[in-house]
């Protein structure tokens, strides 16, 4: 029989070990990414990030089209998911009767449980085909289809986090607004949303992280062509993203190209980690704001 105090300490250090282990794993991934990316950066320098020509045989590795593609689809996805997501969150948290909310919220969260390959499939076959027929495109691939699908994929996280943020605005504040003769809509617009803005932004940024990092769905829809859309804002054109590039090329990659792909991975890692950190900070701000007062 182990003494109680010793047992307590053993359990404590065991959990510390588990926590430390996961941090260590992240650390090693980070180091490994940089280690593998470094040869490519040394070899090609800034050309990697500024050149638009990608030709494996001639050893031309310009990542710019993929970088631009990632940014482009992410902006487009946010244009779809932010208005829809915040609108849905306002409805869920402020307007929907309890019964409706109890059905709707799990359904929206279920969207997050659909495997991304299914989204990609639906996006390519149904949405891609529809857009292609409607706008007379050459194939079923386009940035637009990728933006719409990514937008839908980012929805659950935005809805869920924005809903939580608005729900956490104290009832007292909403009551105060109503008691001053504000309508329900005025209260939502002038009190609830501004008070919850940190939490809502945090959700949007998490959704953005999701859109940047998404691979399978984008790979099936965006076309996988290493070129900039022409003109640069043409969402009907095809292109590539960093994630799709890695996924497609990795299988037959050898030599320096592996290092190039790791460079793409480093960029993704940094951006997604940054979104997650910013999101965390914003969330903490919402919490501080309301816990500071008596």
């Amino acid at each position: 029989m182990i003494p109680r105090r010793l047992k307590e300490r053993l359990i404590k250090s065991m959990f510390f070990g588990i926590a430390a282990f996961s941090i260590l794993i992240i650390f090693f991934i980070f180091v490994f990414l940089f280690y593998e990316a470094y040869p490519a950066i040394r070899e090609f320098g800034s050309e990697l990030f500024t050149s638009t020509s990608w030709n494996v045989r001639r050893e031309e590795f310009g990542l710019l089209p993929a970088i631009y593609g990632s940014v482009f689809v992410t902006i487009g996805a946010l244009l779809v998911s932010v208005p829809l997501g915040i609108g849905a969150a306002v409805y869920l948290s402020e307007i929907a009767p309890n019964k409706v909310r109890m059905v709707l919220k799990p359904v929206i969260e279920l969207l997050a449980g659909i495997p991304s390959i299914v989204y990609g499939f639906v996006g390519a076959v149904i949405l891609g085909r529809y857009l292609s027929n409607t706008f007379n495109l050459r194939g079923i691939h386009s940035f637009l289809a990728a933006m719409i699908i990514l937008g839908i994929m980012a929805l659950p996280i935005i809805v869920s986090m924005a809903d939580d943020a608005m729900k956490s605005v104290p009832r007292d504040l909403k009551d105060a607004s109503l008691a001053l003769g504000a309508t329900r809509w005025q209260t939502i617009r002038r009190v609830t949303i501004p008070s919850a803005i940190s939490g809502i932004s945090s959700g949007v940024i998490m959704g953005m992280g999701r859109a940047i990092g998404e691979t399978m769905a984008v790979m099936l829809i965006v076309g996988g062509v290493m070129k900039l859309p022409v003109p640069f804002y043409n969402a009907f054109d095809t292109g590539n993203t960093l994630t799709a590039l890695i996924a497609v090329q990795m299988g037959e990659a050898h030599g320096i190209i592996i290092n190039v792909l790791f460079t793409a991975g480093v960029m993704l890692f940094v951006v997604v980690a940054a979104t997650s950190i910013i999101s965390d900070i914003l969330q903490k701000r919402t919490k501080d704001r309301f816990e500071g007062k008596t």
Partner: protein
Amino acid sequence: MLAKIKEVLKEDKKCERKELPKDIKMRVEDFDLWYDKNQALKSVNLDILKNEITAIIGPSGCGKSTLLRSLNRMNDTIPSARTEGEIWLEGYNIYDGNTDCVDIRRKIGMVFQKPNPFPFSIENNVFYGCEVNDMDVDKEETVERCLKDAALWEEVQDRLDENALSLSGGQQQRLCIARALATEPDVLLMDEPASALDPIATAKIEDLIDDLKKNYTVVIVTHSMQQAARVSDYTAYMYLGELIEFDETEQIFENPEKESTEKYITGRFG
């Protein structure tokens, strides 16, 4: 066709009216309220006199806050609440189906138990009510007048653009009072406005309530009998959703008619 629509619209505007005696600001008539199947108010009758301070006292759960929240229809925000009976404000039935809740709440201000300033600047807090009601008033003037009326002006005049949450609890509560005054209400409802404050801040609020009487009709819910005795002109005693006794404050505290009232104010229960 158009004439008919106009007629309907006109009819809609009509709201039940009746004449009240001149000195009565609000009248509660046979008012019942249920939360689901729980009856929280039982056939309450109460007259609230103009420019007087009416206190509502009673043990926890007696329905005093519910009654207060009924006076500006704040109970409408609770889905399970259902009412019967009427509450009149200067001859208008505020529970008439055609009455605009939003309008009612502008005319009847409310101060809550916990100070609840918005997380905006001090001046925007005060001006909020005017803004949402599209009132055509000067912002600077209104903010100054209301903060002066709420005895807060001296302390905050140099930092009107600071976040209201940086104020102390007592200051926040006076800010909430200032905010409620900005829409120029006739009646001011206060739900235990000093219960979250220390004795000094409480004294300030009580002085303030006494000053407010000149221009407003005040209804205050309190669980402190001393406070009711100190600030109010009339006192209503409630127990288990019923209004047991209502009279001048002196009368209630010195010579209550009902046994239950006497027991409560002498501290034998509650």
